[in-house]
């Protein structure tokens, strides 16, 4: 239980930062949901008739997270050499923990992200750049689900850190649920995009990001220590 609470709360606090990144996405499809209405009044209107659309979007997103978590867990399990060499037991936990610490430090902007991650991810002619605008404009509820599924893949340090955490479980179900809990934690802030963005100041959002980063680092250190202990 506690294992799920941590990713949930990291998701919750961290999503104050997500607001800046994913918020515009939410707003973008909200805009297309009721075309012809003045932008300033859009959110309230979209919120009323868009409950199911939002739900579909978030469901898709959580699903992607969960699948990524499960996948990472399986990959880690496959890559775990501890099975063959007793002396390496715990090495994957150590690796996951270390990754989390590094990503957490990157989130805190103590470390720069490695350059291969910061290369321009998508040209304007890449597949997502071509297909996502279409999804945004579509009014169907299924397209929101697809959009959510795609959003889950967006490069985000926080979700990577959580995927690393999920990976260390080496259990696809556990990985799935950890990532789902994380995704669920990010829902409130995004669900109430219009509302929360106006209430939360920049400071609060930065604070949320920092708290999430510190939590990630703490979790990473604990995991790394655990792994190191098993290794020694």
């Amino acid at each position: 239980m506690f294992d799920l609470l941590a990713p949930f709360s990291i998701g919750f606090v961290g999503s104050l930062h997500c607001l800046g990144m994913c918020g515009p996405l939410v707003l973008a499809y909200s805009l297309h949901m009721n075309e012809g209405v003045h932008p300033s009044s859009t959110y309230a209107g979209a919120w009323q008739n868009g409950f199911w659309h939002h739900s579909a979007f978030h469901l898709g997103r959580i699903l992607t997270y969960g699948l990524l978590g499960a996948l990472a867990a399986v990959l880690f399990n496959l890559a775990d050499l501890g099975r063959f060499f007793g002396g390496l037991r715990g090495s994957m936990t150590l690796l996951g923990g270390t990754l989390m610490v590094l990503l957490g430090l990157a989130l805190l902007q103590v470390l720069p992200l490695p350059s291969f991650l910061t290369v321009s991810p998508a040209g304007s002619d890449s597949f997502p750049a071509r297909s996502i605008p279409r999804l945004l404009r579509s009014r169907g509820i299924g397209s929101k689900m697809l959009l959510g599924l795609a959003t889950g893949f967006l490069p985000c340090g926080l979700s990577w850190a959580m995927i690393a955490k999920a990976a260390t479980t080496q259990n696809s179900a556990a990985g799935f649920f950890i990532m789902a809990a994380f995704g669920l934690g990010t829902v409130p802030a995004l669900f109430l995009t219009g509302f929360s963005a106006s209430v939360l100041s920049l400071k609060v959002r930065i604070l949320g990001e920092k708290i999430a980063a510190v939590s990630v680092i703490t979790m990473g250190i604990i995991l790394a220590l655990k792994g190191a202990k098993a290794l020694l």
Partner: protein
Amino acid sequence: MSSASLANQHDRAAGNTCSLCGLPIGRSRLKQTVNGEELFFCCPGCHYVFQILFSDPDGAPADFKSTDLYRACVAAGIIPKNEQDLAFRQALQAGEQHPTARSILEDEADLARELTFKVDGMWCTACSWLIEEVIRGVHGVLQAEVHFLSDLVRIKYLPHRVNPEDIQKRIAQIGYSAAYLGQSEFSRENKQLLLRLGVSSILTVNIMMISFALYFGFFQDLGENAIRYFSYPLWLLATPVVLYGGYPILKRAVIGLRYKQTGMDTLIAVGTLAAYFYSVLRMFEGSLHLYFDTASMLVTLVLLGKYIEMHARERVSGGITELYALANQKVRLLQNGTERWVAAEAARPGDSFLVRAGERVSVDSRIVSGRAVLDQSVLTGESKPLRKSTGDEIMAGALVLEGKLQLQAIRIGNESSLGQMISMTQEALAAKAPVELLADRITKWFVPAVLFLAAATALALLFGHVPKDEALLRAVTVLVITCPCALGIAVPLAKVAAIAAGRTNGILIRDNTALDKAKELTALLFDKTGTITEGNFSLREIIAYGIEEREVLRRIASIEAKSDHFLAKEIVRKARQSSVALEEAEHFESFEAMGVKGRLKCGEVSIGNRQFMRCRDLDLARQLARHAESLELKGATVVFFGWNGKVQGFLNLGDRLRESAPELFQEIRSRKILTWIVSGDSRETTLAIAAELGVDRAVGQALPKQKAEIVKGLQEKGHRVGMIGDGINDSAALAQADVGFATGIGANIMERASGITIIGGNPAKILTALDLSSLTGRVIRQNLFFAFFYNGLGIPLAILGYLNPLLAVCAMFASSLTVIGNTLRITRVGKNNSKREVQPQEPVDATESLRCYSGDSG
């Protein structure tokens, strides 16, 4: 500095924050160049999203800052206003502030300027006195009015003696922050309070948990020495609550002491600190009787109460702040064929501008071209869309639902309907009701009295050999239970709620006493034209014997072109429509409530009612008179015209009853209120309409003076009279009546001598106004009762020791909550019975055929 160059500078400066989410970019090196502008991103995610959202699928990336999405994001606060943005806005604001401030400066002898600040951090009415006193003390300030509930400070000052920044600084010195309207406003205060409340409540919950466990002997088995260890965590938990959570309370209490003003903060601060420091002392003595729970609970509940009150205030005054928001809009100015966005204040009468569907018209204007469906519900409270086309006037604040309009500004700033509504509302808010003054005075003396009472209680109990603990506890209880926080908001909150609720319903309350009296009215007098009829006269036919229609229209319209009577306007409009060339009339004269005359090349022409024809010695043929009478009995309005010693014919001007009129009169009758119709129109027309509506009495052909006399007569008979009129020729009657209701749209709202104005003119709003009046009266009485009830009941119980501070805190909280909850009922007025009609109203038929009778076709 022009806004364009500011904008550029602003864009260039925004280099160290993420272009999407606004967070600092830190060590990220992601950037992209769009339209020659360098954009930076804090993480690949933001970059990715940006590329997806703001790149045009069909080709080159569009200017993303002009997309709807970007605007929506900024409006929702997702793309935040970063530091540069803030500076940019301030610069804009400063640029905008000065011209308006200057425009007030009309009178040369009086160099004073007015200035409105929004003040953050006011906790109670005592804060507003303090600020008022302190600003008044500033050299160069003539007048200062602080409105606690709307957080506004209106200052009249001499610009050559003191500048606004100094006044702002002075306010900051005493612990509040002042900003120009539309700047930081509510949110910052709100967030800080929320954070304090959050921290305090989490810690308090823990304190309560441990304390309860201790009270109920949960740890008894551990022995006294072990239990003592629980004191330290309690102390540790309570300290941030008292010092961080309670900081604003303590700060204001200290500032209050320095300025010899005591308020509810003083009471809370004394109570909290007494409980806290006493407990600290006892803790080091090793006692188990500690009151950290009391101290932290007190702070937390006070913060919670404040938080709720702040939200109630915001909700209650929503209708008023909406007005400011409407007035702070931009217009798309059309200059030499190019469009340019400027602040609404920068527009001048005569400027033309464009408004598209989904946008609001921000200044009073006339349609130059185009037609549109408009929603004026923000102003009138009626959701029925209206159709308007070329030549029609539009009030600032109307929302264009469909169509595109080119408009010409006719009134701007303080003269526009919106400006007038704002100053009227401010006037109403500024005036303090007698009850309110009393409550203020009581609060002022209450606090020292309570402090004295608490001290006396403690002393008396100590001499009465009550244990120290107990004496202190009871004194704190007395302090808390008598805290007049509910009393401070009981009346003003209700007043603001009523004014705001009226405003959202299209009822503008200018005078609080009018609102107060409206519930006691026993007779309502209605003017006919424009009140119970639509006031949109259309010239249906011209009845003349032996003269050509165009010639008749030419002569009449030439005279009427000089008159500003509403019937005249319709006649001239009709003449223009039939492209009749008018000539210049000479010796024009207007006779009040009778008619007009003037000289044309062909001779003297008189236009007016029967009486006027008689005065002018014009002979009215019997056949013509009979024909006119038969039309009048159907409710039409008839205007005669004549020359050469003879009435030549008459005009049949039709007006329609308002849709809501029959229902309205039925409802008024069921309330046992006497109804009268008093009209300047002919007796026959008035009676016909009165009979149709079932009005108690009707008087036609009444001069403005007579209307006032009728009101006076009714008053002498013991009636409390409400007069409903358009305010132009009823001003004497409106002023004479106990409550004057003016109906009308557009210009000169301020000139109307009425306590209550019904924007949009639907007389059915009278009922809403009456309901609002009686509800407000009830709520104020109930609020005062609740506020006094808890205090009155609590004091003796507290002295006798039946209450503990915790209960007292809860009682105080309950009293505030009751008052707030009760007041919120007012905001719901008019919401239950407003049916939403989506069907657009049919425009009045302007192309009605103009028939002409010649010969003997009577």
